[in-house]
């Protein structure tokens, strides 16, 4: 068979700039280098001893060890889910390392100055600022960058451990706790006990349960009542060691009337074997509080022949526990060989709102099955879903979403807009929406939330002759673009370039 004719062809009618932008994402993986560093590994495989060992390495109290063991026992009785539109060879969960720590981290460094220079160099190379310096908005060294740049606090997680967290003292002055989850378990046990597993229960799903048993590190954030977090927070995940699974756990609590914006970034070296990443993120949002959570997921996607890449099986959920609580998920997914991920919103409080904005780009042999769940429990709850899937090469991109209106969720609204674009003739796009409405005053439809501002924008567009549907699409797309452009930090620059991608020629 000729390899030339078998090569995916670009379809007619697709904007050339879009093709170029998507290809540039797929061709060059800039973060594929490896850090040559001595590591301590736990023995391969997972069993109760490994769970205890991870717990011991983190110097955890007994209740935490028991919690992990409980999860592990539940996990043993569970089976891997098969409903997602992704295919990959069976994972041998006993052939993985569950704990890998740089040797230099055996004694926890007291400050970033004590961290192994090789580790610091890794983050520098990735463009992640671990120095508490002013960060210029925009590209580093870019001409005309404003001098009054934003500051961003970073928690850097390398394989199984947190290397360091910046700006802690300054955040502490505002009462904000930002540290690794392993430290939080030791230092703030009451908060952790109260909230860990309260959004994603131990038995939630196969990967979340495994994570509950073996998570090694991750970030912990607590924003006290009526506090606006004085700077952006972020966690940068780096998988370096071979044959190692990364299981991180993030817990963010926004107490009454507080606000925080948080960004997560992820990269890994190029290897021709697959690696497992199974994270859990829990967000707790109390009355009148707001969390913005952004992800730039750029795990190694595998090479052009589909060799290697990360299996990314992630459970992310936000619980709007108080009235008027707000959450916004923004994700830019360009990495991973296989993605299985549905950042969700439980809209429990009355008048609470959840938003989900996603751009997923799949190249070569990548497979992405991603979307969201909006569970409306409280009265007058609002949700908005905007998802764009772009497939090139032989990639498969699936949007899977659930909108559920419970009987008590009177007068609730959802607006969903999903677009997909197929760039080649050998890729696929799929949309799997699930809708459940169990009261008669809620609306699930292609209509923007009816806030005053949106009504005025809609009328403005329509007065100019733009029909209702086109006007909604225009406003919502604009909003999504705005959201992406507002992604904090330098390593979101790539995401901003993607915003230019046009979905003209979209398949619907």
């Amino acid at each position, binding site marked *: 068979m000729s390899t030339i004719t078998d090569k995916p062809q670009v379809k007619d009618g697709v904007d050339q700039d879009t093709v170029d932008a998507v290809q540039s994402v797929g061709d060059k993986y800039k973060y594929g280098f490896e850090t040559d560093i001595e590591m301590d590994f736990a023995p391969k495989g997972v069993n109760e001893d490994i769970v205890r060992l991870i717990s011991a390495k983190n110097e955890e109290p007994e209740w935490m060890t028991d919690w992990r063991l409980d999860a592990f026992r539940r996990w043993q009785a569970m089976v891997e889910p098969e409903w997602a539109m992704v295919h990959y060879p069976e994972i041998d969960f006993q052939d993985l390392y569950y704990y890998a720590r740089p040797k230099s981290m055996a004694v926890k460094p007291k400050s970033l100055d004590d961290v192994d220079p090789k580790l610091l160099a890794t983050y520098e190379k990735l463009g992640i600022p671990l120095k508490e310096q002013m960060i210029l908005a925009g590209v580093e060294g870019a001409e005309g960058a404003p001098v009054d740049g934003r500051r961003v606090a970073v928690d850097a997680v390398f394989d199984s451990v947190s290397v360091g967290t910046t700006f802690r003292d300054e955040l502490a002055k505002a009462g904000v706790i930002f540290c690794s989850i392993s430290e939080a378990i030791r230092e703030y046990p009451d908060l952790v006990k109260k909230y860990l597993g309260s959004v994603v229960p131990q038995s939630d799903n196969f990967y979340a349960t495994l994570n509950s048993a073996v998570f090694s590190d991750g970030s912990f954030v607590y924003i006290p009542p009526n506090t606006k977090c004085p700077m952006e927070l972020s966690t940068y995940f780096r998988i370096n060691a071979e044959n190692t699974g990364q299981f991180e756990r993030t817990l963010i609590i926004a107490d009454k009337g507080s606000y925080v914006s948080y960004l997560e970034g992820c990269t890994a070296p190029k290897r021709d074997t697959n690696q497992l990443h199974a994270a859990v993120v829990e967000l707790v949002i109390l009355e009148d509080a707001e969390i913005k959570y952004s992800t730039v997921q750029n795990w190694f996607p595998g090479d052009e022949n589909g060799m290697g890449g990360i299996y990314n099986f992630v459970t992310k959920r936000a619980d709007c526990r108080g009235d008027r609580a707000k959450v916004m998920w923004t994700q830019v997914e360009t990495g991973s060989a296989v993605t299985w991920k549905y950042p969700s919103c439980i809209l429990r409080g009355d008048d609470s709102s959840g938003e989900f904005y996603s751009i997923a780009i799949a190249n070569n042999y990548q497979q992405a099955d991603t979307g969201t769940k909006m569970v409306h429990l409280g009265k007058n709850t609002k949700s908005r879903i905007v998802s764009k899937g772009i497939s090139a090469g032989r990639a498969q991109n699936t949007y899977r979403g659930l909108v559920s209106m419970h009987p008590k969720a009177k007068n609730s609204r959802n607006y969903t807009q999903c677009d997909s674009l197929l760039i080649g003739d050998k890729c696929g796009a799929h949309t799997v929406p699930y809708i459940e409405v169990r009261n008669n005053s809620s609306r699930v439809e292609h209509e923007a939330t009816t806030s005053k501002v949106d009504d005025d924008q809609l009328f403005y567009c329509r*007065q100019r002759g733009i029909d209702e549907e086109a006007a909604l699409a225009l406003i919502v797309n604009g909003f*999504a673009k705005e959201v992406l452009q507002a992604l904090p930090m330098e390593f979101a620059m790539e995401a901003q370039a993607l915003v230019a991608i046009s979905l003209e020629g979209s398949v619907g």
Partner: protein
Amino acid sequence: MLNINNLHVELEDEDKAILKGLSLTVPAGEVHAIMGPNGSGKSTMSYVLSGKGGYEVTGGTATLDGVNLLDMEPDERAAAGLFLAFQYPVEIPGVGNMTFLRTAVNCQRKARGEEELSAADFLKIIREKAKSLKIDAEMLKRPVNVGFSGGEKKRNEILQMAMLEPKMCILDETDSGLDVDAMKLVSDGVNALRDGKRSFLVITHYQRLLDHIKPDVVHIMADGRIVKSGGPDLALEVEHNGYADILAEVAA
């Protein structure tokens, strides 16, 4: 061109009458000004004609070239040739000014069964028109009205009007918030669109705008209807004496 006959309008939510028997005719090619005290229903009239929600028409008619406006969707009214320059143009974050206008122009063309403008043709036309209104290319790329000054927003409204080439233009207090120079620029833009066929309804509080945009007829509106109509002198009278005398005269 525009015919409003005995129009009665209430607020949908409050059961409160705003327009109480408004009648007004603007023939093709003419410029009519509407002045009147605050709360007389001037902005309501512009919203009702263009189809904004929240109002209930309880009686009367409004037609554009004989076609009933009140039965149409807002975008259909626009495609039929009705344009409203807003008093407070809204911001639409993330939507480029150019994209917005091109979508609008082509939606209207499509609705009228005309061929859509190509990107190149559109670009050529908008550049010319923007130049004459002293709108720089940078402003065309920025999101619709986001971060625009008051003057820029109003100039942008006139640019949209120039691109959409409506038959009937309603300007709702376009002069509010403009300094003298900006008012001149906006007025020049409007005057450039006067071609003997296109009609204008200019809502304003101040006579000075009418120094620049010369009206054929001036109407005084009070309590939801036109109470007096006259030539350009009527605007001067209002400027000097306020509305009290006119209203007293009408009441008598």
